[in-house]
């Protein structure tokens, strides 16, 4: 049950002098939904492409479904489904023609072909539109059809590169329902996204920034530990002076305005009382200071900031 589906060992990709992916290592267990989170250009797509055998790593090794990608890329391709970031079905072909093409390419057995295609059409919500040209479909349908094409051969591993970018919220929800349904059937899913709310749907998430793996863990875990201290919400009357005063206070790791309040990250040696005192001294009237549960976005912003500082140093 807990077999290893994907292993990345110090995967590195350099384009000329630019290092797009810098020694990224992780392991994904079969049946897991792993999310890749990171800003644009962080190296999420490049990592996925190396795992699929589309790009050759400059260094490091990728093992997918127990096969070394560098040794037997075709063996890997038989066992994976891939959805690229950019829509890449044939726009000048109909829904049915695209599905039949990929069924042929993946050599879906003839006795289950019709059933699998019908399932994909159904899943994509395209029943009755089998004869529509794909380029006439709206974004959400296109993405679901692309997913349908990627799972025609029932691959045990799925790579989805920003499958929901540019798709309306309702379609995004439906798409995630599909991902979870597949994970329940034991499919391993590696999905990249830049939507924070989607990250919460993953079993584990890998935070990637500037080619580096910044953090890896379950969403709850990351929120509890990755920040390195409690997060407080400070409501007060003057935001500017408050932020000034707080960031000068030792033990305050980070401050960030948040609506008409301030999010303050402190180390474990500080208390709420220390903050209140510092603010009063600065002449800021404090309404309340309460500990809050950090969101993944807080974690993300904090960790990316720290990574940048380290890289710059």
């Amino acid at each position, binding site marked *: 049950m807990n077999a290893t589906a994907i292993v990345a060992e110090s995967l590195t990709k350099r384009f000329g002098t630019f290092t797009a992916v810098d020694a990224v290592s992780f392991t994904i267990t079969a049946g897991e939904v792993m999310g890749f989170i990171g800003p644009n250009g962080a190296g999420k797509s490049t990592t996925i492409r190396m795992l699929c055998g589309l*790009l050759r790593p400059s260094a490091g090794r990728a093992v997918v479904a127990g096969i070394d990608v560098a040794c037997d890329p075709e063996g890997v*391709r038989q066992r994976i489904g891939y959805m690229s970031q950019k829509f890449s*079905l044939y726009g000048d072909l109909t829904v049915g023609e695209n599905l*039949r*093409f990929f069924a042929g390419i*993946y050599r879906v057995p003839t006795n289950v072909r019709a059933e699998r295609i019908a399932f994909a059409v159904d899943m994509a919500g395209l029943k009755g539109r089998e004869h529509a040209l794909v380029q006439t479909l709206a974004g959400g349908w296109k993405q679901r059809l692309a997913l349908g094409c990627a799972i025609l051969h029932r691959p045990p591993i799925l790579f989805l590169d920003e499958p929901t970018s540019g798709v309306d919220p309702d379609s995004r929800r439906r798409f995630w329902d599909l991902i979870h349904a597949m994970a329940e059937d034991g499919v391993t899913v590696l999905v990249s996204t830049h939507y924070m709310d989607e990250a919460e749907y993953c079993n584990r998430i890998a935070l990637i920034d500037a080619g580096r793996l910044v953090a890896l863990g379950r969403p709850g875990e990351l929120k509890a530990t990755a920040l390195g201290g409690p997060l407080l919400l400070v409501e007060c009357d003057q935001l500017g002076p408050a932020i000034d005063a707080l960031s000068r206070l030792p033990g305050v790791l980070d401050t960030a305005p948040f609506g008409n309040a301030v999010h303050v990250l402190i180390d474990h040696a500080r208390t709420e009382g220390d903050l209140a005192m510092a603010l009063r001294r600065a002449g800021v009237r404090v309404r309340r200071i309460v500990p809050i549960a950090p969101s993944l976005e807080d974690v993300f912003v904090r960790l990316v900031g720290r990574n940048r500082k380290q890289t710059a140093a």
Partner: protein
Amino acid sequence: MKLRRVRAVARKELLQIVRDPRSLVMALLMPFLQMALLGYGMSLDVKHLPICVFDREGSQTSQALLKRFQASIYFEIVAVFASYDAVKDAIDRGTCKMAIIVPNDFSQHLADSHATSVQAILDGTDENTATLAAGYAQAVLSGFQTDVAFRWNALHAPTAREPGHLAVQSRVWFNEDLESRNFIIPGAVALIMALIGAQLTSLTIAREWERGTMELLVSTPVTPMELMVGKLMPYFIIGLVDAGLCLAIAALWFDVPFRGATSTLFVATSLFLLVVLGIGYLISVGIKSQIGASQIALLVTMLPTTILSGMSFPIDQMPAAIQGLTYAIFARYYVTILKAVFLKGAGVAELAIPLAALGVWACVIAALAARAFRKTID
């Protein structure tokens, strides 16, 4: 190689061709347009050349000579002048390519010596036409002289045999009428097939790159060999249709004598198609933009085929080094085969060498094309 994948690729490609009527129409109209252009435009014959005459004698004999010029299919008298200035003007303007000036002692001279001369002024700016026209004019004149001499003999010695001069009777084989069209058109078919073939496939891989479909295709287990075979199959069929159209136009419309067997043509055309489709495919793999690939395909097929295949310039009149180079031009073999099949009725046995050469080309190109495509997006 898995047949199902090849079939899936071929069907997809065919659907895309059908969905893009522009390229299909282009592929099917090209033979007509190109054949018309090359068949009518590329004639090396001189026929109905506009000429003017200046008859300084105005006798019955001189008029008889000019009638012969008029009767010749090579000339057409478009103007009759009465002064040198007018003649000069017409040549300068280019309204006439040649002027025939009959001297005022023409009949006298003919009666005295049975030999005559007339003056021909030629527009030398088109050297080929001028040379040919001078030759034809000579022929008209000597024909006239022979007739006059013969009539003179008959008049003076009714029992005497025809004056006994020896003349070379040349007989041209295979292109009896020396119609330049008969050897240009089979060559034109080769040129058109090379152009269309390489054009068609030059787009096929580049299109996948441009539309972003390549990334997904590369992630599937389809092998480079399956992709190539599947992609070339529909174009091979279109190519055969085009070849059929071109050959039919050559034989039926331009009346180029067809003396060989269709089966020989089929074998040769199939091999040639494999070569040009393969070249287009290779270009498409190397160049990721459709426009770029199409331009390169045009360059690679058009230049060597027009200049070095023997289609328009005879290979045995080229400098030795260039002749050696023509062996590396795939179109050379197809042009040789087409001309031989059309005009000589040659069969597979006589054409074994050029056919084998085309076969080698096809194998080499197919091997290169199958290997050229790398399944990565680096």
